[in-house]
């Protein structure tokens, strides 16, 4: 199953074609294709072991697909990794930071890595927005789980990425932090970023995402707006996202597999 966007929109965001990843004999992801245009938020959902992490790692350039292509802002991630990654930010669910760099030094480092010329102006408001100003000289070991997550978010957003890949972005955040994070995702999308958001919190996906990609067993089960997914499957009429998810990835889907 594939979907497509007009070329102009696709070049501004994320375009995945025939993504397949094998680990030995195990097929983690099989022939996955989708596009995320500028301003779109795509919710990537699937049960444990469905291939979400492999997909996110492939999108962020951590691992190489066995076959298929990934374009970030029009750049082939395999052939032109530097410009592609320049436009990309990956915010993992479990952020790991450099043990011996302070909060401020992390941001300085990221700014140099991504060539952010006006970092001196950008860093203070970003720290203030994420309530990290008081902790700017602290090392990661001196931060709480939520603060480490906020620092990872700050590192991801510092260079104004055109493509944002988020894995369980609310993990570890307090209610205030969750609200701000959601607002940030929406704001980034409005500013033209293409966002891929993976989460088991289906309410969050329903709230923020313009389209949804449900994967199971490494394959696309459904993709599109919720209304479109229901329209293609009349038996799902009247169900919420949670019930749709379970219907497409539950016992029936297992039997089909």
């Amino acid at each position, binding site marked *: 199953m594939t979907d497509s966007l007009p070329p102009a929109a696709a070049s501004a965001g994320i375009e995945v074609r025939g993504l397949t990843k094998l680990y030995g004999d195990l097929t983690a992801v099989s022939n996955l294709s989708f596009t995320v245009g500028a301003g779109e938020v795509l919710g990537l959902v699937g049960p444990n072991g469905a291939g979400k992490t492999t997909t996110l790692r492939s999108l962020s350039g951590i691992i190489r697909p066995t076959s298929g292509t990934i374009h970030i802002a029009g750049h082939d991630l395999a052939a032109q990794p*530097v410009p592609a990654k320049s436009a990309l930010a990956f915010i993992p669910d479990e952020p790991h930071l450099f043990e011996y760099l302070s909060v401020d030094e992390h941001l300085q480092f990221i700014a140099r890595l991504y060539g952010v010329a006006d970092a001196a102006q950008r860093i203070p408001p970003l720290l203030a927005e994420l309530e990290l100003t008081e902790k700017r000289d602290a090392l990661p070991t001196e931060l709480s789980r939520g603060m480490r997550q906020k620092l990872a978010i700050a590192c991801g957003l510092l260079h104004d990425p055109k493509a944002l890949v988020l894995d369980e972005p609310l993990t570890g955040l307090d209610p205030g932090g969750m609200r701000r994070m959601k607002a940030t995702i929406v704001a980034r999308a409005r500013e033209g970023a293409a966002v891929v958001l993976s989460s088991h919190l289906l309410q969050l996906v329903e709230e923020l995402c313009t389209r949804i990609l449900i994967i199971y067993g490494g394959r696309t089960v459904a993709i599109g707006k919720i209304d479109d997914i229901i329209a293609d499957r009349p038996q799902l009429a009247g169900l919420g996202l949670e019930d749709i998810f379970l219907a497409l990835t539950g016992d029936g889907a297992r039997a089909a597999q």
Partner: protein
Amino acid sequence: MTQHTESRGRFAALTWLIARGVVNRTVRRARRARQPRYALALIAGIAYFWFIANPRRGASFTVGGADSTAYLVYALGLAVLVASWWLFGSDEVALNFSVAEVQLLFTAPLTRRQVVAFKLLQAQIVILPSVLFSLVILGRASGSIVERAVSLWIIYTTLYLHRVGASLVRESAAEHGASGLRRHLGAIIVVAAAAVAVIWGVSTQIPALRAGIAAGNTLGAAIAILHAPVSKAVLYPFRLLLAPAFAPSLGEWVRAAWPALLLVAAHVIWVLRTDAAFEEAAATNAARRAVAIARRAGRATMPAARGVRRRFRLKLPPRATPAVAIVWKNITALGRTMAIRTVIAICVAIVIALVFLNQVMPATDRVSVLIGRIALGVTLMLVVAGPLWVRNDLRLDMLQLEVLRSLPVRGATLVRAELAAALVTLAAVQVPMLLVGYALTPPKNPITASWSGQTALLVTLLVVVPVVSALGLLVQNAGALLFPGWVRLGLARPGGIEAVGQGMLTMFGSLVVLTVCLAIPGALGGALAIWGVSHAGLWGLVPGAMLGAVLVAAELWWITAWLGRVFERTDDIPDETAANAA
């Protein structure tokens, strides 16, 4: 900004990352040294290094000439080391990225070559202090300190680069199979040619070695072989690498240094141009290490082992008591965390050595005698070192104190079960070794004159070795419980001078306690054994051993009961101890 300038800017950011990390780490350690425990450990560590490097003790590194036997022996040592990397090398060397590096650098706009260059540069954080440390340890030697420092740097850097290159080739082969091997055809041809040369060289020298042994001059024959043209030819790359370190004058050093530096440059080019897709294995490896670190700090319970280790299975009887379950858990933990590759490498090396000895020794039965003596030696060594090495007891579990405290087991039972797990592990090596030693050592030796005497000695050792080992383990576990900040907990291996000092102080304290605990059982058991030998020969040792064992067992029972009460009163281990373990 041009692409080239941007690229340079990004690499400058990576060098800044390394420098900043070093500065921050140093500042943090300096702050930590304000605490008395670390200050004391630092003093002990410095004292230790001062002792081994004290010039007045005459410590010096005599290098000899470029044709000296020492030179060739070192070259042979390097050759064996490099061969072991190709044959048994771990893929973790080249892929030693932290999760932070994977998450922040692999996703950053950096080329693969820049990432590899970053790792090579980062390695200098370890290599440069190693050079400094070696200069201190080796003491006085010919040549200026700069010459010696550069010579050592060449050796360490080349070896590091070679290890990285070898593991990248291995990784590529593992991931891409035949096509991966084809990508590294040049390196593989060089290594294969070297292997063929070594095998051919060794085979041509076997008759000479056999003749030397038959003439009773084994050492002389081995040295002569080392000096033979074929050996020198095989060892040529390693001699090239070592040549600056062995140069007797500045002129010769300069002449030796430039080819060695070319060797370094060739390795840099080789590694940087190796287009092996290391990212995936690096990411997996980094995640595994992160879980292991979290586990050490008691933050995660999932095993950090590779698939091969997860295959380790030990059946737990369905009606096992809680104590047996704890023993089972700890033995399973050991099976899943010990370095399987290392064990396999050691076994293969022993088999190769025995095959070689069998070839060169005229009488094959000598090999079996050698094996017997090695087995006995290993057993006795394990009595002393075993309790330090085998750590699947409270030293592994103290970081999971909250879990341990929640178990429905009395403190004394838990301490005894923890101790038993390590003892069973240790005894599982010691007892078969003793039996092998007994079976392969002929009874006609300086201690025993008959199989009866030899059997008496075996029975004595079968009684004494486990109880002394148990006492050694008890001392280590008591340390973990009473002084968790002083004993290495979990699987982490903290580095730094203060860690060495802390280890020295802990070892000294443990030896004192062990000696005190052994004093009465040793004196009474020893006296009975001496009396017994004078009346009943070697069989007279057994009652003395039994008495000593009973007394040690009583001590063990009483001390574990006390430690159990201590355990029940222990609510937490200091945060810093857990942090250090992580």
